């Protein structure tokens, strides 16, 4: 999979055959991996299994392994990139993008391969190599359109952020080596908690940058918005989860920590989910909106991890199972519906040539299938029954309501407050996605751009249909997918705390029945309505606009005005910018209003800080002479200093 894209270079730059070969290779790689995952899920292939070879790289072994936890995270890696590759055949045709189609194919394949390696790496150095390969491949895949200034800026911010994260990870693995004596990633239950706590913080910071948890999310909206859509889908649906995987794995390796570990994750998760979706509502760029919603979903996953972590510290097996199963299922679910929504947005952009929601509208008339698929994704991402998002949030709620039953005062009952944060997130998500559905697909067309809208071709449609099928399937029959998650939770939690069968005791059957009942009720009502309509007659007329005769499409409530009431509620967090010209006199001139929600952290904190540092750091340039021997001299000096320091320490 990793090298599938390289074969593209064997073909001419405009060759559709080359692109197809790349997609077929991706699919073959994915199919092999997927069958492995499924074999392990059904129990035919006993886990864990490992492979360990000495390697010529000093201090590092080529150690890879597969266990229940890795298998859960591998599944999206093998599904979404392969679907995206086929989508890409139509979305990013070699014939229309001869300059960068091959580069995109190569980077895209490398990204998928590196992610798979991240999940199975069992050696710290190998992990870091895979991690860096993943980060760089994502950079090259996301910045294929590097002739645009905006893309270069987004790519630059991404590169800085991802390396800030990697820096923390370097420190983490150095500390790990110091504490355990090797780079091998094997559980170290004997480590004192005082040593483990700083390692946990380092892991949380390092992986938090990749996952896009709230204060460290700055790279995410820009990078997702400017990448080709199938790359955005993979970045959001799979790559962010590598950060989650890192946190889960690091915590599994470290000894059982204090309660505040889980508390920290719960707080960060709550900030990310409420903040992420609140920012999403303020966006008018369709892909930035989806990117912010990814932050929200990662926050929801972090809430589940926080619950599991608190449960591990407080010996509560039910919290561990519900929290971790909820979080891991949401990892899958987010891959499904966010993949679907990004691919859908990509098809929109492909047809209309714009990412601005304010100029869309009424597209459902021209592309009813796209609207149907979008509606499935939107209902699923709002965590509404009967689709898959509801199941994972239901598990999390079950966990939080368990927490409220804890006897006595203290920090443990406070865990249940996360349920309130989750409820608020749910309501905000409905606001956000109703707005998006309404503005893009419903109503009347707002501009000429909409006239170019058409249904996408089969290559773009089918990946979306498969993802939507996944959303519906998991929603109606959640019991079918719980076994691998339970195995992962059992492996992650401490033996004796997590009892087998805890998940099977949950009333998934009732949940399925209720969802089926809902669908049946709605279908029956629709049928009755249809019959009444045929009997009594349905007339078609213009929209009732309260007696005003000359309505135009521009008078519709726009996405900004719809979002404005929510943005106003959360203005203490969002700091929206509003510019309007004042109305003067009895017959005022044409006036305009513009509302914008910039990223508070990036635009008001990080970039000003960088600009300020720009003023002071040039003074350090005297050290940069541009002559090689000067740099070698620096190395010599530093080594001598280190030698002296080490010598002084050993005495």
């Amino acid at each position, binding site marked *: 999979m990793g090298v599938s894209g390289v074969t593209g270079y064997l073909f001419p730059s405009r060759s559709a055959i080359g692109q197809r070969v790349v997609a077929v290779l991706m699919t073959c790689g994915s199919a092999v991996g997927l069958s492995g995952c499924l074999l392990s899920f059904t129990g035919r292939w006993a886990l864990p299994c490992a492979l360990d070879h000495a390697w010529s790289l000093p201090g590092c072994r080529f150690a890879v392994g597969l266990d229940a936890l890795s298998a859960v995270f591998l599944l999206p890696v093998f599904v979404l990139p392969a679907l995206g590759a086929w989508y890409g055949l139509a979305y990013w045709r070699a014939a229309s993008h001869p300059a960068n189609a091959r580069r995109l194919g190569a980077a895209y394949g490398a990204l998928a391969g590196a992610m798979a390696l991240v999940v199975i790496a069992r050696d710290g150095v190998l992990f870091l190599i895979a991690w860096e390969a993943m980060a760089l491949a994502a950079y090259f895949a996301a910045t294929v359109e590097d002739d645009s200034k905006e893309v270069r800026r987004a790519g630059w911010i991404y590169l800085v952020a991802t390396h800030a994260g990697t820096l923390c990870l370097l420190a983490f693995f150095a500390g790990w080596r110091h504490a355990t004596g090797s780079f091998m990633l094997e559980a170290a239950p004997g480590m004192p908690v005082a040593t483990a706590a700083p390692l946990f913080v380092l892991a949380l910071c390092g992986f938090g940058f990749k996952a896009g948890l709230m204060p460290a999310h700055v790279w995410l909206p820009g990078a997702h918005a400017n990448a080709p859509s199938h790359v955005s889908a993979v970045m959001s649906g799979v790559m962010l989860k590598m950060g989650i995987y890192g946190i889960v794995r690091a915590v599994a390796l470290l000894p059982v920590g204090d309660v505040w570990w889980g508390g920290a994750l719960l707080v960060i998760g709550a900030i990310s989910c409420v903040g992420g979706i609140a920012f999403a509502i303020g966006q008018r760029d369709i892909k930035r909106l989806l990117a912010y919603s990814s932050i929200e979903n990662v926050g929801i996953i972090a809430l589940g991890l926080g619950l599991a972590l608190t449960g591990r510290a407080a010996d509560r097996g039910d919290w561990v199972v519900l929290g971790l199963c909820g979080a891991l299922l949401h990892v899958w679910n987010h891959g499904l519906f966010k993949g679907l929504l990004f691919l859908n947005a990509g098809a929109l952009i492909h047809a209309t040539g714009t990412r601005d929601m304010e100029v869309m509208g009424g597209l459902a008339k021209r592309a009813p299938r796209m609207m149907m698929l979008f509606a499935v994704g939107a209902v699923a991402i709002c965590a509404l029954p009967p689709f898959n998002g509801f199941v994972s949030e239901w598990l999390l709620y*079950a966990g939080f309501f368990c927490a*409220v039953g804890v006897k006595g005062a203290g920090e443990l009952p406070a865990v249940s407050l996360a349920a309130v944060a989750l409820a608020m997130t749910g309501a905000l998500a409905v606001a956000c996605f109703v707005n998006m559905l309404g503005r893009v697909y419903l109503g009347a067309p707002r501009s000429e751009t909409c006239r170019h809208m058409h249904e996408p071709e089969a290559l773009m449609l089918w990946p979306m249909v498969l993802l939507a099928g996944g959303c519906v399937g998991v929603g109606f029959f959640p019991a079918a997918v719980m076994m691998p998650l339970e195995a992962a939770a059992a492996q992650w939690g401490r033996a004796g705390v997590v009892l087998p069968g805890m998940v099977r005791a949950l009333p998934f059957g009732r949940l399925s029945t*209720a969802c089926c009942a809902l669908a049946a009720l709605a279908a029956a009502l629709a049928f009755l309505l249809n019959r009444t309509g045929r009997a009594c007659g349905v007339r078609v007329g213009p929209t009732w606009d309260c007696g005003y005769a000359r309505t135009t499409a521009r008078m519709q409530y726009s996405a900004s005005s719809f979002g404005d009431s929510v943005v106003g509620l959360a203005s203490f967090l969002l700091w929206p910018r509003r510019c309007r010209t004042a109305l003067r006199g009895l017959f005022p001139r044409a006036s305009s209003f513009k509302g914008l929600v910039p990223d508070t952290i990036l635009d008001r904190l990080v970039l000003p800080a960088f600009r300020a540092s720009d003023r002071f750091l040039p003074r350090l340039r005297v050290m940069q002479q541009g002559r090689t021997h000067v740099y070698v001299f620096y190395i010599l000096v530093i080594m001598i200093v280190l030698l002296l320091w080490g010598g002084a320490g050993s005495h």
Partner: protein
Amino acid sequence: MLDNLIHIAVLLLVPPLLPGVIAKTKAWFAGRDGPPLFQPYYDIAKCLRRGWVVSETTTWIFLAGPVVTLAATLLAGLMVPLGRAHAPIAFTGDLVLFAYLFGLARFFTTSAALDTGSAFEGMGAAREVTFACLSEPALFFAFLVLAKISGAFSLTPMLHAPTVAFSAGIAAPLILILIGLFIVLLAETCRIPVDDPNTHLELTMIHEAMVLDHSGPLFGIILYAAAMKMLVLGTLVLQVLVPFLPGRDVLRGPLFLVLLVALAVLIGGVESVMARLKMRHVPYLLVGALLFCGFGFILLIR
């Protein structure tokens, strides 16, 4: 089985009575005769017999709005216990489904409003989703309090717990969430002081503005579903109120219906003595509900 049949019958037949009682109460306050008590039944029956008009901009979402709303409300109604009987659908975690079914209804109602492309309906939809962002957390705070009191994670035991396990210690939290839930009830069923269903200006409405374009059976379904929602959420409020009433042990089947009617009278009274709040002041009221429920929770786990 008999309990379930009675539950379904009440859920299907009683709802339109409540808006009728409210209208009668308001008429009494104003010194008028008012429409007959059963007027909502006549209205709905009339709507269901008619044909309807759809806007040329609309898609299937426009029809899905009322259909999904009624289906979701009906299913949610099967999960709340009326009186002391068990609800027909009860399982661990049903309260999350209960709350999210209303979310589903909101999703489709507001989408159907946007489907028409009318500015007024967009305005109504924007208000609806905004206010829900505050009332939904308040509802979950109240659920947390009830879960703490009952030690259960299912609506039937949770809503029976205030009566069954009543003690002086839980009275204060119960009163606080009662106030919060009552405000949520007013907001979710679009009553004064949050929304005025009888105003003549579409600009100032929430729910009625969203359904301007629905007519005939579609509108009938919407009226019916709204009344049913009032019954379901009203039941929620009553179950918390019951322990404070004299003779709480005898409040079974028929008497519970009397209580529902009394609640409708109370809502009618509130509507008669208050004016609708300014739109920008509504969030304060809902934040108030959130705080009431939150303080109830804190009192309980302190």
